[in-house]
């Protein structure tokens, strides 16, 4: 069995002044993930090390952390190819709760600002109920289908948020995950909050903050390119603003006459 030297960041705010690193040498199986190594650690030399996971199959996005400085899902990352020295730290841009566990509140605060929930076209609770009866038919050769975002599903793990230099520089920036969600909804023909969401995306904290560095694209464990989503958003937002401007001009003209 391969031997790994694990350096794990330990930190309990309130109790500890500064984070520290603990080193543990351990044998792992060839197919072990980073999560397997942490679980082994928990059963042996560090029973109180704190880390997060739930599904352990890359679907829940609870276990994102830094492995040798790079954002990864602990459950889906084989540890042996990254060894023998492996450094494990919590995500960046988010406050630590304990050891490898971060508070995702800033990530979800940003997310909530883009109106991430689907807004039905007709409110089924007050309307005729029409919206509830028919399932949208979106043929794959239609313009609607082609305009929609067809990237893999986001698991909101926070890897992109952690990797984004613009988030580090400006905590007000919406960040890759929120903007990617905005794109999904803006290109979803079933959603009714298109304009409202585009105004947020086009605002100071929105898509135009992105410098296209591409960190998020590199670290996304699902293979999403938020960079690509944001570029699309910029184009849609510019078109939207131009159209609004032209409409405004038209209105002014009409008024002048």
């Amino acid at each position: 069995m391969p031997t790994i030297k694990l350096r794990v960041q330990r930190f309990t705010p309130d109790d500890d002044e500064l984070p520290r690193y603990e080193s543990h040498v351990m044998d792992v199986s060839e197919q072990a993930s980073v999560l397997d190594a942490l679980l082994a650690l928990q059963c042996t030399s560090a029973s109180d090390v704190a880390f997060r996971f739930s599904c352990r199959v890359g679907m829940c996005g609870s276990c994102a952390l830094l492995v040798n400085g790079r954002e990864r899902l602990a459950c889906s990352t084989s540890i042996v190819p990254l060894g023998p020295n492996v450094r494990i730290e919590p995500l960046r841009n988010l406050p630590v709760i304990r050891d490898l566990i971060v508070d995702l509140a800033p990530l979800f605060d940003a997310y909530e600002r883009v109106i991430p929930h689907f807004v039905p076209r007709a409110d089924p609770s007050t309307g005729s109920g029409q919206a509830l009866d028919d399932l949208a038919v979106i043929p794959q050769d239609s313009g609607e289908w082609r305009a929609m975002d067809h990237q893999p599903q986001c698991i909101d793990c926070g890897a992109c948020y952690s990797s984004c230099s613009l988030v580090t520089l400006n905590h007000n920036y919406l960040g890759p995950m929120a903007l990617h969600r905005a794109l999904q909804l803006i290109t979803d023909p079933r959603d009714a909050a298109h304009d409202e969401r585009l105004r947020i995306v086009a605002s100071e904290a929105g898509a135009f903050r992105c410098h296209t560095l591409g960190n998020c694209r590199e670290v996304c464990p699902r293979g999403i390119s938020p960079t690509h989503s944001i570029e699309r958003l910029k184009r849609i937002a510019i078109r939207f603003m131009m159209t609004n401007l032209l409409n405004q001009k038209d209105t002014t003209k009409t008024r002048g006459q």
Partner: protein
Amino acid sequence: MTDHLTTDILILGTGGAGLMCALHAWWRDPTLDITLVSKGLLGKSGCTRMVQGGYNVVLDPSDSIEAHFEDTIRGGAFINDQELAWTLVADAPRIVRELENKIGCLFDRAPDGRIHQKAFAAQTFDRTIHRGDLTGIEIMARLRDQILHTRIRVFEETRALELLTRDGRVVGALLLDIRRGEYIAVKARAVVLATGAGPLMYRLAACAQEKTSDGVAMAFRAGAHLMDMEMVQFHPTGLLVPGSRLSGALLEEGLRGAGARLFNGQGERYMARYDSERLERSTRDRVSRAGYMEIAAGRGTKNGGVWLDAAHLGAKFVEENFAGMRERCLRLGVDLAREPVEVSPTAHFNMGGVRINRDGFTNLVGLFAAGEDAAGVHGANRLGGNGVAESTVFGARVGEAVSQWVRGVDHVDANAQQIQEVRHDSDHFLSGDIVSSPFDLRPELGDVMWERVGIVRDGAGLQRAIEELQVLQDRATRVRVKGGRKFNLAWQQALDMRNLLCASELIARSSLLRTESRGAHYRSDYPHMDDANWLKNVYLGRDGDTPQLWTADVQLTRMRVSE
């Protein structure tokens, strides 16, 4: 320190059932104070998030509710509560429309733009809707988005320790904030159990790690009536990865639906000997048992598994339709699209749980249950694709029912002494020298359950398991952990063990009582289904500290047993 909170509806669990319950209660009456408690993170914990293949629903005009019902009852070997099963299939089409049109899920489309329905095992119609092969992400993320849009209170990384009762009524729950390690005593008009049960007491299990039977164990201790606890589903195709927690994680049913084949270690397509007609597309109980028996007979792979082979379906087909499953295997160096993958049956789902009616009422006033914590919908075996349907359908129903029910009831103060006792029982793991670690006990429990209360059972083994479980229960109380109160995973593990051991004993005792084989329950000393004596459900209640068991006839209200 104990914080105190008063709320109208306390929902324990944030999977599909918990979130649907919360949303329906909120939509019906936004003046209600609703509190959601998640053992993990909102939208990320539990098994709805892990749903792969999909959701069974009748959408196609050439399919019918009756056909879905019949498949569900036959799959459940006729001990389902037929009214609950009917509710499932009858409500599912409405709930799926709600998921798409109100909540914003987008399921995969066929080229013509209509929702695509694929084949799952043991169904007479291809009625499983999906989002690729990782459907749960879509459902849970969109439900979470809607929750964020309400003023529903959410406690994340907070667990329920015990239901608080007074004079036979459930009046709230004592919670533990895992991050701070502090208690929260919640007074509620109604408590909804939606913790997702989960057979994590087995050596190999598919579930998310939070699902340590907390709901079932708390309900039992509070005096709720449980049913069908012997019915534990084993999924036929869990990954086998030596030395990794990934072991037990599923490769989805749609693979077999699409025609993937199972081979033993000698290269024989063994399902022909167990179900010559349906082969790999037989029900989960049969396919799992077949795999288990092949392995037990020494015809397994070198790691003690069997082979799942999808390569003959064509690499392109597998790559396109099972991208998530393929990726899961690729990390292990195996390409599902091109070569067989080593799998084993894995503990997956509790058909048993708290006895409910169609609106989630239990025998205890003030206690409701939905999803995997509840029993009856699936009988002796659940069909793939009916699990997430159950969570969302019954979560929604309970939300509707409970939001109306709470209007007519007042809060009742909890018994301060009970709170004191629960706190004491939980705190004692933190004090004293470490004699035994909770992490050591878990594999021992896994072995007992796998070997004696697993896929093949017999009376002597079950009897022995009950004794072994009692020894483990005793050892579990002597566990001590270090590391303080804050986000202490070892402490959480110790608390999990208590519930896992409680549920394990209930499973073993129910299994001992059912002297026949039916669905997921197979007794080698009673290998045949015995309709003359066992068209019954096994019930469990509490008599003092000991489980009390009884049986009652299944009510065949809609469909009679036929050949």
